[in-house]
């Protein structure tokens, strides 16, 4: 990793020294080699392993097992049911909510929008643990409340989180924000004139909605449905927390269970391939769906869309939005705070029972806390920094067509999107537990995993930022005799600063909450916060889990806030608006 970064730096330095010499090719080769090490090698081993038995002889036996053994077929079916249901629920919730926030005069709509985005900071497995505290059939706080209100007998429950529906609900809670953001942004950009024209031609509000707004938003919603489907398909944390007590596996937890002793990497590799193939197929579908959206924004500038007046429905709408937000945000965090300061998570903490026992245990007794915090920070900072640099480099090369073959880079940088975290974990495990690069057991393997997982998002973010900066500015610099690096430093970099900071934040947050690859790749020396929480879950130490989860979320929130102060997200948005105009 560092060697490639160095090579890149050296390349630039030489270019600076001997202007006129072409160092494009070495840079291209270095970056391509790096991406091969990160992506192609693990995936190659994955396929090779899936086609061999324990002795290494070629066989299709793993796939026969995969599609005939009920212990694989059942999880496969369960996973598909979950993904379809989550996708449907997310659309049903996110579409109206996105519309309310983007196109109506609902009170609190800005706050609702911010809070939905904020709920994404919650790692899904933490959300699942919090929902366990709320809706475990007997000890869940909501069930207890319901029993005390209705007098329902103690062995009946209103909610049972340890069930397929419970799992679907929790996954949907932490997936719908993705769909929401897509829908709300699309509705923001939708030309108001079309709707105005429709009303001017005498259409009623609902007719305009049906004939204009919905058809225009539909491709985005479809894309959102696919994003939700993929999230649910490849999620590991929430199923691991909820499905095992409920007595079933999803494909990701089943893959993980194959690493129990004796580990069966061949089967794990084979079981990973359906996830990989399905993801690739769906991403193609998503590209098609989003591709069609083009016509909605063709034709230059449009006016701000007009807000729909809700009239008497304003307050009910706001109440509904807050109710939706209670699911991923208010209720789970209340449960986590309660559990952090209570001896038993199932009892509401009072002034008499409030205790710092869990805080003391977590920070003074638990010997893994500090090493895990240190590892997590180091990895998040390094991944964010190196990831942003790598993404910036690739985005620049591709956007300015700086070297021949730049398209390969663009492909490799987006390819990891199709690799679920747990599959990448398995692939990296297979590739780097052997010479020449025995990286297993070091932080490097986690660093590779994290950068690889976040590279597509980082690349897309920066590449759109590059497209927003007019090449004329750079060309002017070049014409006045500045080298490419000089131009980059003096002209492009300042314009991109806020986009880079936003990308850095994004990767940082994503790394802190990553579990699915880490759970395959960690060793006792390289434990990160998410894995520590997962280990504590195994022994049921929910008090310590609550303290660690809140710490994790607090850190993430602070980092995002600080980065925003230094000109992150909002400024990036402004920059786009400015440079695109």
């Amino acid at each position: 990793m560092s060697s490639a970064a160095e090579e890149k730096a050296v390349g630039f330095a030489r270019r600076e020294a001997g202007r006129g010499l072409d160092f494009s090719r070495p840079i291209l080769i270095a970056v391509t080699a790096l991406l091969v090490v990160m992506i192609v090698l693990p995936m190659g081993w994955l396929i090779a392993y899936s086609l061999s038995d324990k002795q290494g002889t070629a066989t299709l036996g793993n796939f026969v097992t995969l599609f005939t053994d009920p212990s694989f077929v059942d999880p496969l079916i369960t996973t598909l049911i979950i993904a379809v249901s989550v996708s449907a629920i997310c659309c049903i919730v996110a579409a109206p909510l996105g519309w309310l926030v983007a196109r109506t005069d609902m009170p609190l709509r800005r706050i609702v929008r911010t809070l939905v985005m904020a709920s994404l900071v919650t790692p899904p497995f933490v959300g699942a643990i919090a929902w366990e505290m709320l809706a475990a059939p007997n000890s869940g706080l909501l069930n207890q409340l319901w029993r005390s209100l209705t007098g329902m007998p103690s062995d009946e429950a209103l909610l049972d989180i340890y069930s397929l529906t419970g799992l679907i609900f929790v996954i949907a809670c932490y997936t719908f924000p993705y769909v929401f953001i897509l829908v709300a942004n699309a509705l923001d950009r939708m030309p108001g004139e079309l709707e105005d024209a429709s009303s001017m031609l005498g259409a009623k509000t609902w007719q305009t909605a049906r004939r204009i707004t919905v058809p225009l938003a539909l491709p985005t919603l479809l894309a959102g449905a696919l994003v939700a489907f993929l999230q649910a398909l490849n999620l590991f944390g929430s199923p691991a927390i909820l499905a095992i007590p409920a007595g079933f596996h999803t494909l990701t937890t089943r893959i993980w269970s194959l690493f129990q002793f004796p580990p069966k990497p061949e089967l794990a590799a084979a079981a990973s391939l359906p996830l990989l193939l399905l993801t690739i197929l769906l991403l193609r579908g998503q590209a098609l769906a989003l591709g069609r959206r083009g016509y909605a924004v063709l034709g230059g500038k449009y006016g701000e869309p007009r807000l729909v007046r809700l009239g008497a429905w304003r307050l009910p709408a706001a109440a509904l939005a807050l109710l939706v937000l209670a699911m991923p945000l208010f209720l789970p965090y209340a449960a986590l705070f309660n559990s952090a300061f209570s001896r038993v998570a199932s009892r509401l903490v009072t002034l008499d029972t409030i205790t710092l026992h869990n805080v003391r245990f977590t920070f003074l007794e638990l010997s893994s806390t500090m090493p895990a915090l240190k590892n997590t920070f180091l990895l998040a900072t390094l991944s964010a920094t190196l990831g942003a640099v790598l993404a910036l480099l690739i985005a620049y090369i591709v956007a300015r067509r700086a070297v021949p073959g730049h398209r390969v880079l663009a492909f490799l940088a987006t390819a990891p999107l199709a690799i679920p975290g747990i599959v990448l974990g398995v692939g990296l495990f297979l590739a780097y537990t052997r010479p020449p690069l025995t990286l297993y057991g070091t932080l490097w393997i986690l660093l590779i995993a994290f950068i690889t997982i976040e590279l597509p998002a980082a690349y897309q973010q920066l590449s759109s930022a590059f497209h927003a900066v007019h090449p004329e500015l750079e060309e002017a610099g070049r014409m006045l005799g500045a080298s490419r690096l000089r131009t980059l430093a003096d002209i492009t970099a300042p314009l991109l600063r806020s986009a880079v900071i936003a990308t850095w934040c994004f990767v940082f947050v994503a790394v802190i909450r990553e579990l699915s690859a880490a759970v395959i790749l960690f060793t006792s020396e390289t434990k990160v916060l998410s894995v520590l929480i997962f280990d504590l879950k195994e022994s049921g130490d929910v008090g310590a889990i609550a303290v660690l989860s809140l710490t994790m979320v607090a850190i993430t929130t602070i980092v995002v806030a600080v980065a925003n102060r230094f000109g992150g997200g909002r400024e990036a948005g402004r920059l786009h608006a400015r440079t695109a105009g």
Partner: protein
Amino acid sequence: MAAAALLPFSTKVLSAAPPAETITPALIEAARKEGKVSYYTAMDLSVAEPMAKAFEAKFPGIKVAVERTGAERLFNRLAQETASNIKRCDVVNSSDAAHFITWKREGWLQPYVTVDIAENVAPEMRDPDGTFVNQRTHLSAMAYNSSLVKLEDAPKGFNDLLDPKYAGKLVKGHPGYSGTIMTATHQIARALGWGYFEKLAKQKVMQVQSATEPPKKLEAGERAVAVDGSDYLFWMGRERGVPIEVVYPIEGTPLIANPMAVFKAAPNPSAARLLFAWIMSGEGQEFLVNLSGQYPANLKVKAKAGRPPLSSIKTMRDDPVEVEKMADEIKAKYARIFKV
């Protein structure tokens, strides 16, 4: 007697154990130079971490890193780390005694005997070649939350749990993660047959992973009855005022030995020996007993007052040799029956 079958071989076999050692100033000094020691264990954190802190207080300058996870995951972790040439484990302690047979055969364990072990630990509790010793014994007991189950409704043994009135009320650990449950599953299946588990699986059992979790689920009131779980945690909860009653099943209670060994590849060999020696000393054993009430291996140390003496409990017989042979089969059968 307790852990009678901990040993695969009779003690009459010529011993290859090294001479017994004591904690010498030289050992302490060498350990202090290393400054740290890693302790891999399956024991609940509420006992393991305070024990580590007690050791740190006794020997300032040596930091203990506790690596706790279920014994079966610990076994997997050690196998992966060793295969990848990662040397981190100094002292290992697990609730699946069968693992020590494997590790000894692989040559991963460092023979090390202290005078405390040689003089105060029963021969059947230690390896004749001095590669491992039982650190403490606990039981996989049954228990119920007495605010949810009345005394007259309480189960008395495993077969009682098949009564339809317990459907949806049971919580149970998993042998794929927990050594306690692995050992217990072997003993229960041997005594009652696998058919018992097939019937039990129809009772809508809540499946958790570690044997340390059922006590916590009972305390939270999430389930009324624990099929299994570490007895010392049920007792510790009870002593804290949690309404828990411990049940020793009439069919017999699974007996769990918890051996400990110094790892041959220990990165901190002196600190490893010091921690090992201290845990087996009267002081270390007393600390464990006072805090958790587990049954000490050191005969000089008395069991905790207020807990039933081990001799008063009808226990099942543990058989690590068989568990070692059958572990994969037990995991596979269990996963098929309970679907996870």
